[in-house]
């Protein structure tokens, strides 16, 4: 059905400046991607609200569902900074979100979805100078859902908010900081105690031995998405 209108499930031409893959490879990855970047969230929106909306695009009877949600956090304050990643089990579910949810409201803000290459360690943090998303540093308007005025006033807002909101104060860095979300069904092991007690890491865990070299840490990619 692509002749008469453009489908809404096409990825934007955003390119993660910190990824080392070329555009061809990136397009291949996006054509199988199960992960969405969600932007323009209110800083106050919770993962459960996100779960509720995005579950509506899930196909559990096809082996799908929401695998995990990774809340984007301010690097310094460890508070939500307006974006997240939603990872499904299937590509079709990510496409459904692009078609049906992107451009609708969550928590009274119009959110935007984009197909994403997949979560990599460290991407849960904002890449702006202040710790949040770069787009908030350039912002001139007053946005109560995003901590008031731009980056400067925002600091005060966040300070105030910290009193009540310490949900992610325990957010960790490094490998294994973010849950894998559970993999495919496996026949239960019938082995002894010892192997059962080993921490079962799903193969999808972002163990990430191939950490990407990060030379241009200040380059904000998430800002470009908007």
């Amino acid at each position, binding site marked *: *059905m*692509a*002749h*008469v*209108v453009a*489908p*809404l499930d096409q990825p934007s*031409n955003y*390119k993660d*400046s910190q990824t080392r893959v*070329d*555009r061809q490879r990136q397009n291949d990855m996006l054509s199988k991607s199960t992960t969405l970047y969600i932007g323009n969230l209110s800083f106050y929106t*919770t*993962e*459960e*609200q996100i779960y*509720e*909306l995005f579950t*509506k*695009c899930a196909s*559990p*009877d*096809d*082996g799908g*569902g929401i695998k*995990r*949600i*990774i*809340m984007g956090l301010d690097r310094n304050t460890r508070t939500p900074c307006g974006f997240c990643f939603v990872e499904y089990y299937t590509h079709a579910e990510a496409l*459904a979100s692009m*078609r*049906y949810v992107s451009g*609708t*409201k*969550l*928590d*009274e803000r119009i959110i935007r979805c984009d197909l994403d290459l997949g979560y990599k360690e460290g991407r849960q943090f904002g890449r702006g100078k202040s710790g949040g998303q770069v787009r908030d540093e350039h912002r001139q308007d007053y946005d109560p859902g995003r901590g008031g005025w731009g980056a400067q006033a925002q600091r005060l807002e966040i300070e105030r908010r910290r009193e009540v909101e310490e*949900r*992610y104060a325990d957010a960790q860095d490094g490998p294994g900081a*973010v*849950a*894998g*979300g*559970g993999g495919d*069904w*496996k*026949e*239960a*092991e*019938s*082995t*002894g*105690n010892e192997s*059962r*007690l*080993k*921490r*079962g890491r799903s193969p999808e865990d972002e163990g990430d031995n191939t950490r990407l070299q990060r030379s241009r840490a200040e*380059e904000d990619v998430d800002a470009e998405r*908007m």
Partner: protein
Amino acid sequence: MSYDRPHRGGGNRRRHRDDYDDRRRDVYESPAEKLKAAIIKFGEVDVVEELPRLEKSIRESTPYAIPNLSEAFRIAVTEQPFKIPHYAALLRRLHDSTDEVPTAEDTSLGKQILEDFWKGFQAYLDKLAWRETRLCIHFFAHLTVAKLISADSMFGLLQSFTAVLEEFGVSHGRAKKAAVCAAEGLMIAGPILKASSAERVQEIISAIQAYNDTVTSPKWLIGPILKMYSDEGSSSSADELLDVVLQALKTLDESDFAETASSFSQPYASFPDPDLASFTPFNLPSVLVPPEVIELDGLATDSGEDAQVKKEEWPEYFLRLFDNDVTPDPKTPAGYAVHSGLIDLLDIFEVNRKECARLLLEFPKWTIPGTFKPKPGGTVVPEPVPGKDWQLESTVIENVLGAYFVLPESSHKSIYYIGLITELCKLSPSTVGPAVGKSIRKLYGTLGDGLDVEVARRFAEWFAVHMSNFGFQWVWKEWIPDLSLTVQHPRRAFMRRALEFEIRLSYHDRILKTLPEEMQAPENRTIGEQAPGPNFEYDDPAKPHHDAALAVLNLFRGRAKAEDVISHLDTLKATLETSDDGGVVNADGLIRSIAIQSLLHIGSRSFSHLLNAIERYLPLLRNIASAGASTVGGSGNAEAKVDILTASAAFWKYNRHMVAIVFDKLMQYQIVDPSDVVGWTFINRAEIRELSEATGPLSLSAFEWDLLKGALDKANGRVMIARRKVTALRKEEDDTRARVKASGEDGSAMDVDAEVKTDETPAVDSPALTTALKAFASLTREQKGALSRTLDGFVSCLAPGSTDLNPNPHSRVVISEVGWNERSGWEKDQWNAWETWGWYRQFCRSYAPYLRNYSTTLWTVSFAKFDGSTDPAADLLKKTWNVATGQE
């Protein structure tokens, strides 16, 4: 979004120049592409004005690239069905010879295009692309009226489709689509066809009628308005697809298709008839509708049942909300044309809901003038056509909702229809908004008068998401009088559910503020008093075992190792069992409750925290689930798993959303199995009174249904994944073997003996395939178990034996006609029983594709005990089952 932002342009940009360049290249359009685009865009401004111009540019595009032209027609016809009559007019003009370009008949441009178009039609038919096939038939039907296609060959085409209805064992999905193809073709081409042969018209109608007469039982199970005591499916406020097709067709036939001209646009009607001396109409070749492809992967369950899943086997009911003078009655020819035109738009433009909304609101442009009320403020106000003059927005919303409420499931995800209505409202708030409001009120009004429970659940879901997009502005106060209804009355259940769904998308305080005081009042039980937070039972120092629980919680907080927590719990258990006051009766249960609640406590901050907590302590969870017997593989200990589910539900008893999420993840991480969740939902759930509306006698509300659905979908989804894995591995191995064989042949092409030897080698499955097959066997077993426990649960809820605990005494009353007619006096238990019956129906019809595979075993397990029984509840249970599994 733009990469041209002025403040950008550092070195980084340049490095990626190549990446961007390949996107920014200007698209060069060849003349052929331009012409194709022009054909597809035909009529965007003024279809009548454009016709001669487009004809001219096509004629001038010599030498003709016929495939390009016919492809443009094919795309136009199958993707813009509202313009089909105009494409028929265009083709007709291209067929005629003109003064400037006299064409001999064999070189007629129109004919060449039509011949090539036919190839495309044949390809759609071969793929059984039903919608495209049907829309091509529309095109042919218009061309028949435009005298370009012979009536005889058009009859032949339509009768190839009615032939499908007589196939032995034809599936309903296939028959339904074939019948609609034939019927719609006949509606449009009727004026010519009837004049040619009234007898053949009658044959087509009779064939559809005869088929439709055989599908009465499924209709009883699938109508959106429940009348459980009656055998009839029909209802005045819902129309079934084949029923309306037949009615519209018969109405047309009675007047010899005089109404076709006022139902379907015929822009070619004014063209002079072709000169029959020099013209032979095109004869459509004869076709055969190919049989459905059955994928034979030979995968059966370990007890030999077929494990294929086949959906779309049901009649389609569309709920009507408005009167016939507001929105068209699809049983009339003109009403059917509008209905099917709008439903086609919904399906075709599913990929872009914004464009779909725009096209829906522009729909009147393509209908016969006077079909819809003119837009206010228009310059020319046409005379209203009697019997038409419908309201566009109400019509659109009624059809979108009608498609959304199709049972057992809509063709697309709920959120598509919901998002589409949002876009419609955004495009024209002042006209669509009121239509949405009226629809909500109409639907609400049917609650309590038999609106199906699944439709009611979808209604609540739509309501909540819609309100979430429009500031949660609803005039709740108009429903205040209904607070006097009994607490489980469908209207009150709707209000509670809608508010619960709104809170999930927003937050408690925000939603509370949107309500009038009467609804906020806790005694009216419409919304919770407080935000739905966690409930750690051992939090209060005065509670028993507070200290023990705190110690466990602190271990988790301090990120103690799983094995250390396990040994701590072992010690704690020993202490509890030998304490001074004689020991705790169920120390195992208590330990599980403390451990699970403490773990959920550290995971209660967010969904991610929950996942982290579970992943960090998987060994502990497995240890608990297997009752400490960690060498036992697999299924764990049933009682321990019930305790885990009970502790989780108790922890989140004020937040049912979290109960569903936790259960889902416990299944995902294989701590519990789907059948454990099913069993728990029917039996143990009642222990936590705060959790459920359906306490007291065994019964199910929408919340329990959601838990069941979550478990069943998980079981079915796993089988689906396992099946795909086996198929992929088999294909891989077949390919490898073929390659080995081929290379062997290459090496010793002359060596006949060697080849024979290769063939004799028995195929040995790789370890990966063996594992995948084993997983498939385990998972189909689990699937069957989960389905069986669900059926059994419903049976004991709805036809309780005299010895069953806590039976609902009303389950037999609510299904009788007398009982139903006395519903104004029903209390909580009666409505609960009625709703449980509703969920049983939804279970049978929506899981029918899976249930069919196991129908013999499941029947024996759950229904054999009713042999010879005259219990009306047992009869209805069996009847519902038989209809769903296709045995009645």
